[in-house]
């Protein structure tokens, strides 16, 4: 179990008055404080780590969020913001003395402006909810994390989420225009707006990816884009992970940037095919989903060039999607991949390292060797074009030894990513999961400088303080 900062005894002691104070601010069913009802809030998408919070509060307006923050600030209570609770790095893991601030009830689309190509939405709108709101007019919101069906835009901003189509369109940071946030003291700030760039410092850049540690996001202004004329996906199957990895590097190296370039290895192909029935090649060791878009002529041109490159790598099969339904099924399998691994293993840890694409073949080979050494199976499903790896380490949570081995294996993979010139996280954030590995990536001076940024926003370290930074500088805090 992950180490947490010492709970504040004075806060635990005045629990009842804190709950009563919250009830006065958010009436009705908006405060949860009974032990049985708190239990389901003890974890998020990283269910190996659990901690029952002091209370949960579910505000419906920015004003209520501001009132809750001001109250908690006055009382010295820690706050853990939560969206859909889909974080794979434990970003919404509660603390025993913390109030979980759930933004799920703030799920309204506030404004859509097709002329200026932007939409203003509350933090609890799901990622796909934005696209659904604008698609009838031929628009979409580009970043598409695999959990886009459920994950919420507030969480996307805080983790700077990516997705399959970020290869072409960039991550959340590249598609944001403005934020309304509540500071730790309960002030409401508007940052940026329906225009490009901002006057003064790039606060938007700073707050994006700040993992709920600098302020609470309540409203988001996003860039919406005109949907492409059409898109087609190709499935390219290969005889080994290494060959597929080398093919990815060749495609990117040729200067072609497909809209998406996704990788799946054999275990992943089989699990996802059982869920999505997309016609994945079950006889292959590895598969790439390569999507191109534009007019039919453009699509044909790029698919031909990509096919030429793939043919140099002795593919098992190459298949282009023939219909909208087939493309939908292909993506359903990819987007449901993590969950689908639940069909072959009761539990998994999803890693999220990033490496230069030129090192893909090498790193995949080394992960395979580690898998054999640790005796734990791995499924590889990831955004290959971005070099953003997602090895899923399968283990059995009912066996504590198996979980410890999985954690060690995961740490080794992430260290390897840094060693080859990459990074600990691509899009899931550091959370608690990678917190104690931050020293592998950053020097103590660099970490301290980042801590000072947090302190400038939140001097008392009340906002989500157990995440991102090792609890004791330079010392791994994992038990």
């Amino acid at each position: 179990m992950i180490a947490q900062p010492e709970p504040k005894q004075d806060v635990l002691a005045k629990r009842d008055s804190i709950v009563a104070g919250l009830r006065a601010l958010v009436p009705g069913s908006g405060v949860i404080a009974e032990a049985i009802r708190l239990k389901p809030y003890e974890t998020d998408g990283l269910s190996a780590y659990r901690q029952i919070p002091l209370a949960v509060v579910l505000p419906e307006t920015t004003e209520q969020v501001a009132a809750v923050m001001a109250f908690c600030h006055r009382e010295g209570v820690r706050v853990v913001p939560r969206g859909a609770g889909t974080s794979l790095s434990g970003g919404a893991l509660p603390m025993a003395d913390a109030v979980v601030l759930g933004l799920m009830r703030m799920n309204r689309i506030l404004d859509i402006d097709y002329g200026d190509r932007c939409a203003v939405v509350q933090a609890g709108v799901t990622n796909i909810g934005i696209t659904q709101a604008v698609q009838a007019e031929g628009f979409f919101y580009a970043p598409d994390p695999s959990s886009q069906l459920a994950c919420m835009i507030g969480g996307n901003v805080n983790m700077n989420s990516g997705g399959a189509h970020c290869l072409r369109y960039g991550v959340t940071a590249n598609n944001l225009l403005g934020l309304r946030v509540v500071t730790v003291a309960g002030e409401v700030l508007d940052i940026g707006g329906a225009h490009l760039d901002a006057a003064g410092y790039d606060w938007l850049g700073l707050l994006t990816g700040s993992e709920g540690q600098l302020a609470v996001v309540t409203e988001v202004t996003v860039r919406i884009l005109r949907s492409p004329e059409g898109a087609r996906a190709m499935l390219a199957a290969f005889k080994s992970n290494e060959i597929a990895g080398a093919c990815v590097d060749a495609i990117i190296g040729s200067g072609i940037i497909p809209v998406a370039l996704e990788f799946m290895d054999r275990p992943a192909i089989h699990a996802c095919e059982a869920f999505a029935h997309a016609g994945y090649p079950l006889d292959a060791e590895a598969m790439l989903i390569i999507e191109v878009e534009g007019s039919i002529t453009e699509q044909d041109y790029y698919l031909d060039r990509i096919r030429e490159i793939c043919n140099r790598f002795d593919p098992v099969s190459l298949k282009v999607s023939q219909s909208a339904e087939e493309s939908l099924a292909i993506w359903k399998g990819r987007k449901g991949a993590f969950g689908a691994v639940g069909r072959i293993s009761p539990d998994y840890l999803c890693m999220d390292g990033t490496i230069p694409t030129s090192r893909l073949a090498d790193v995949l080979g080394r992960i395979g060797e580690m898998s054999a050494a640790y005796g734990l199976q791995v499924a590889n499903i990831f955004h290959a074009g971005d070099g953003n790896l997602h090895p899923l380490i399968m283990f059995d949570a009912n066996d504590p030894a198996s979980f410890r081995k999985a954690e060690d294996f995961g740490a080794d993979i992430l260290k390897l990513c840094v060693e080859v010139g990459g990074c600990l996280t691509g899009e899931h954030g550091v959370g608690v999961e990678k917190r104690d590995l931050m020293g592998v990536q950053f020097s103590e001076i660099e970490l301290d400088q980042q801590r000072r940024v947090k302190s400038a926003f939140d001097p008392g370290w009340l906002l989500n303080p157990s995440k991102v930074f090792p609890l004791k500088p330079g010392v791994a805090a994992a038990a």
Partner: protein
Amino acid sequence: MQTNFTEEQLRDPETSVANLILRTCVHCGFCTATCPTFVLLGDELDSPRGRIYLIKDMLENQRPASEEVVRHVDRCLSCLSCMSTCPSGVHYMHLVDHARTYIEATYRRPWHDRAMRRMLGAVLPRPALLRLALRGAKIARPLARAIPGNSVPAQRLRAMLKLAPASLPAKGAAERPGVHRAVGTRRGRVALLAGCAQNVLDPAINDATIRLLTRMGVEVVVAEGAGCCGALTHHMGQHDPAMHAAAANIAAWSREIAGEGLDAIVINTSGCGTTVKDYGFMFRTAPDAQRVQAEAVSALAADISEYLTRIGYAPSRPAPGLTVAYHAACSLQHGQKILNEPKTLLRKAGFTVKEPAEGHLCCGSAGTYNVMQPEIAGRLRERKLGNIKATKPDLIAAGNIGCMTQLAGDALPVVHTVQLLDWMAGGPAPQGIAAKSGG
């Protein structure tokens, strides 16, 4: 996901199944997004993942169900939208069914709740009693607004009276057991689940089914001894009456299978279809002979749209020039994964078919849910009707009497898919529907 059951707990077959289901869940949270109650209430506790967690905690600790757990499990519609969404294949239906039975065994509900559930469980599956009750409701209907207060029993009484139809139709052809001969050369023989409440509320559905099938050369048997499928009581956690009803059906249909034989057991109420298709699981620990029969019955069960697709439906009238909003019943789309058959058949019959937005969200009917949870059910009904009306249809078609009752009473007529198919194949037009062109 990790579970904490002792070896001894796992020796109980029910707990062992629950454990396997819980182990499949990876807590990814995808299910929250397509759950009607999470969409409306925005609370993890009113999402499938939250309920799974509440149930897990209750079962692991062998704790009697508490008011909190009951509140959130009761709010589940059992629409099974979560099962369509779940990438891991978590069998939520079996888990929540078990939880409901567990709740019934370990939790004492307030008196009015117990009384209401007992009453619904006793009346709805018995056509004679239901007819009697609805006659009474017809008289009491104008008084609905006069029921004072906002207490739970008052809200439920008002909801119940509002759902009662203004007039009761005459008995239909499927009310009594019997054999309806095929017209021309016999090409098949099926049993029809005549059902319980549907027979009273809208016998025209069974009449249309029998007309259409016999016209297509299929002999239709309403088996002696078959009745309610058991779903209504099953979903209220009333295990014994549900198993009793199911056992009667299994016995009745098994006699037909052993006798002249059956090609299918045709069901035109998809809520029932989901349950009949689950008989094999429900009787998994029964003595061998009954278990094998239950499995055979489940394997033969087919929704009317599945069966018509199988034998090849064709219309005989010209296209009616009508636009139909197809309302996908949850039991059909999520419970039985039947997505395209009804739409394809309606198009084949000559209708223009529209699919409303948020088609995956429940209309709020959900068995007895619209009586027991009137507030949430009412909000879902409004949302559903709003999405349906946006498609500007002439009428609504659905494959489940529960949805039809829930969506009735607004501007648009609501009919069963099979009534439209029968009409276009030579049967009479459903009441209140007329062709705009051709005909």
